């Protein structure tokens, strides 16, 4: 299980725009590199990311080999209600990581 780090403010005012940062441990092997013997290293990347806020998707991304190792994403959302944000990464070779973070909205 890969390690994922998420930064979400623990509390926010209603309607406030909050920044969310998410990073997951993954080599993101692009599939274009060769070993010294000339054999191609097969592609192994994270292809999809999604963030849901109390079950509603607020941000998602399709990732390609041009994303650096340990893919980092920072984006914004409006704090509408207290609840949980669920983050999901899906990748090659059955890679799947789910993390969640709680937020209290006043």
């Amino acid at each position: 299980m890969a390690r994922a780090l998420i930064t979400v403010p623990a509390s926010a005012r209603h309607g406030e725009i909050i920044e969310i940062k998410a990073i997951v441990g993954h080599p993101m092997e692009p599939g274009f590199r060769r070993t010294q013997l000339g054999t191609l290293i097969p592609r192994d990347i994270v292809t999809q990311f999604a963030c849901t806020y109390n079950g509603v998707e607020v941000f998602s991304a399709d990732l390609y080999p041009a994303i650096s190792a340990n893919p980092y994403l920072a984006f914004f959302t409006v704090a509408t209600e207290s609840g949980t944000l669920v983050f999901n990464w899906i990748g090659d070779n059955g890679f799947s990581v789910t993390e969640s973070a709680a937020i209290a909205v006043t």
Partner: protein
Amino acid sequence: MKERRRPANSRRRFLLAAGGVAAVLAFEPADATVAEMSDAMRKVVGGAPVAKGRVTLELPPLVDNGNTVALTVRVDSPMTARDHVKTIHVFTEKNPQPNVATFRLGPRAGRASVATRIRLADTQTVVALCEMSDGTFCSGSADVVVTLAACLEEL
């Protein structure tokens, strides 16, 4: 007389040939991959017109290491239910694959700004293409100089 004319003639011929080689060197390598990027962009846009502007790409102008380059894409949009950014596509000219990432936002994003870290294989132009909620497209680009390339090194 005949012998005298020959050097001038061959010099002219040499200059013409050199000019031709320079022209081929200048245009041919770039063309193939730039075409690939515009193909990928056409797939997203279809036949719709793309306006320049409203999209800002924040990239360092000089990159030491192409393996991790901080990229921020900002779109000038009020992000309301009526007028917001739907998707942002990022493309590169000279990476092995033109696509970099596709971000899907909505009115709940609040601010049209996404940051990530990308790989760059060469000195090139990075383009962000953005689809608005009313179906229009706009784009922005940034030029980057890369000294150490990513993606293609041997292990």
